[in-house]
């Protein structure tokens, strides 16, 4: 526990001193301010009579009055996927340096000369990174949830719980960034490959179509295998929408809420973390 506390303190102080923490929360705050000032709702007797986005009247589709609950639900589920991308990108950017910087000559000696196993050291740093990233997810989603609740008086907890799916993809990508960091000791490579794998996952959502389009059977098998190996970033993004929207969502959207994408993505993260720990234990400094 002491090692974990020491690592959390170290990571937070570093993030604060290097402006990462400030930039991280500053960007999130700007986003929140823009969001808060952009939306103006006209609610009459609990129903939405009109809405303005960036000062412009929003087309109500012929309906004069829309249930405010439905509007909030639709808005939050659509908006959550946007937050899915924002939170993931900011998190990787703010935490991918944790291993490469620790492995710098002259620094790693100071950490490894303590009575701490390498696995414990790496995992403590991983948890510290997750706390940093998680605090921003909570800040961003929590504040937006509060703004929506303040403007509409609709409290919709599923929006907040949708943050756990965002947290899952961050945890998996951070595990991958740690693995790359242990092997290469490079922050830039850790960031690039983590983003790369995220986009690769988006593309592989269409693995059926890609596999059908390739000319050779082994290529199709490879595409399908890669789909099952890599994180399901597209499916998880869709799952955030489905989870936040709940039963109101169309069947097509709700169909992604199955254990498979969650389990295979989590398994990828666990394998990355185990591999990173093993390589870190074997590594010579």
């Amino acid at each position, binding site marked *: 526990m002491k090692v974990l506390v*020491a690592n959390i303190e170290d990571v937070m102080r570093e993030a604060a*001193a290097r402006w990462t923490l400030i930039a991280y929360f500053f960007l999130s705050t700007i986003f929140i301010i823009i969001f808060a000032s952009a939306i103006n709702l006209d609610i009459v007797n609990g129903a939405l009579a009109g809405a303005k986005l960036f000062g412009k009247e929003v087309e109500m589709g012929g309906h004069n009055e829309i249930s405010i609950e439905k509007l909030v639900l639709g808005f939050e589920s659509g908006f959550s996927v946007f937050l899915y991308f924002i939170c993931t990108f900011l998190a990787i950017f703010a935490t991918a340096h944790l291993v490469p910087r620790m492995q710098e000559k002259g620094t790693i000696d100071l950490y490894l*000369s303590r009575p701490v196993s390498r696995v414990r050291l790496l995992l403590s740093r991983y948890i510290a990174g997750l706390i940093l990233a998680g605090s921003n997810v909570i800040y961003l989603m929590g504040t937006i949830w509060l703004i929506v609740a303040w403007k509409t008086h609709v409290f919709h907890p599923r929006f907040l719980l949708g943050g756990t799916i965002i947290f899952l993809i961050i945890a998996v990508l951070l595990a991958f960034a740690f693995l790359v960091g242990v092997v290469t000791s490079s922050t830039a490579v850790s960031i690039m490959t983590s983003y790369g794998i995220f986009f690769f996952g988006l593309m592989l959502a269409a693995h059926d179509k890609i596999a059908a389009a390739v000319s050779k059977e082994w290529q199709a098998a490879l595409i399908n295998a890669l789909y099952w190996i890599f994180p399901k970033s597209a499916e998880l993004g869709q799952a955030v929408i489905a989870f936040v929207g709940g039963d109101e969502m169309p069947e097509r959207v709700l169909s992604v809420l199955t254990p498979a994408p969650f389990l295979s993505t989590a398994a990828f993260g666990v394998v990355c973390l185990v591999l990173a720990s093993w390589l870190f234990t074997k590594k010579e400094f």
Partner: protein
Amino acid sequence: MTTLIEVSGLRKLYRSSFGKPKITALDGIDFHVSEGEMFGLLGPNGAGKTTTVKILLGLTHPTSGSASVGGLPVKNPESRRHVGYLPEGHKIPNYLTARQALSIFGRMSGMETSAIQKRIPELLERVRLSQWIDVRVKKFSKGMTQRLGLACALIHSPKVLLLDEPTDGVDPVGRREIRDLLREEAKNGCAVLLNSHLLSEIELTCDRVAMLRKGKVAAFGSVEELTRKTATYKMVASPIDESLVAAFRETGAGVERVNGHMVLSVTDVEHLNALVDKLRAGGGMLNELTPVRSTLEDVFVDLIRAEEVQQ
């Protein structure tokens, strides 16, 4: 006295690129350091000093042989429970203040918060950094950073200290203070292993020394033993005349007359006694007979030259 560092038959081969032979960093070295002892590790660049220290800390894994600290094999992280380490060119995160750095490393060494808070001021006082307790490390000079590094190594009151160039960048007064501090630690039972290029520093501080060359222990012993040229003596006697010098040379001794005294090179102590007998038999008076000492630097340079001759 309890042995706190034990190294036996330690070998380390580094892999190299394809087609090239492996590099032998350590080729079966043995030594031990007991509690209260200050031990110096010397050698030219690439002799294996840093590799030895890294193995003792578990930073690098040995190819064969064994190493233990505090009775525990170095593979076990617990062996580092009572080890303080100051690496050469260490980088204490520069965003931390002295207090924060000591707090983080103290906690990583398993100390309680209350004990850390009590220890920090007294330790910074010892390394003369009290005024800088809440200043970020990036504002520190090289000497100050070095002293803070020493404080980080001492935060958990270790029983074993491994120091790589501890006085690097420190002014002469600071160097003396660090030497005194290390002696004090040794006096309190700490085993100190010093790895330094500053031979005078080792000579002034260490009880015993191991000189490494090409991964092997080339010379080993106390500083006194290593710097004593056992076969060379300074003899001050009267009268010293040519007949006496000739008589000495007849025995096979090397004789050099220097500023009114003689420097004798003999084969052993019996040979030396035979020369003294000759002096007395001739009616001479022996005023002074002392072994000629070299500096640690002389011994070191001789070792390097011997290596060059071998090549």
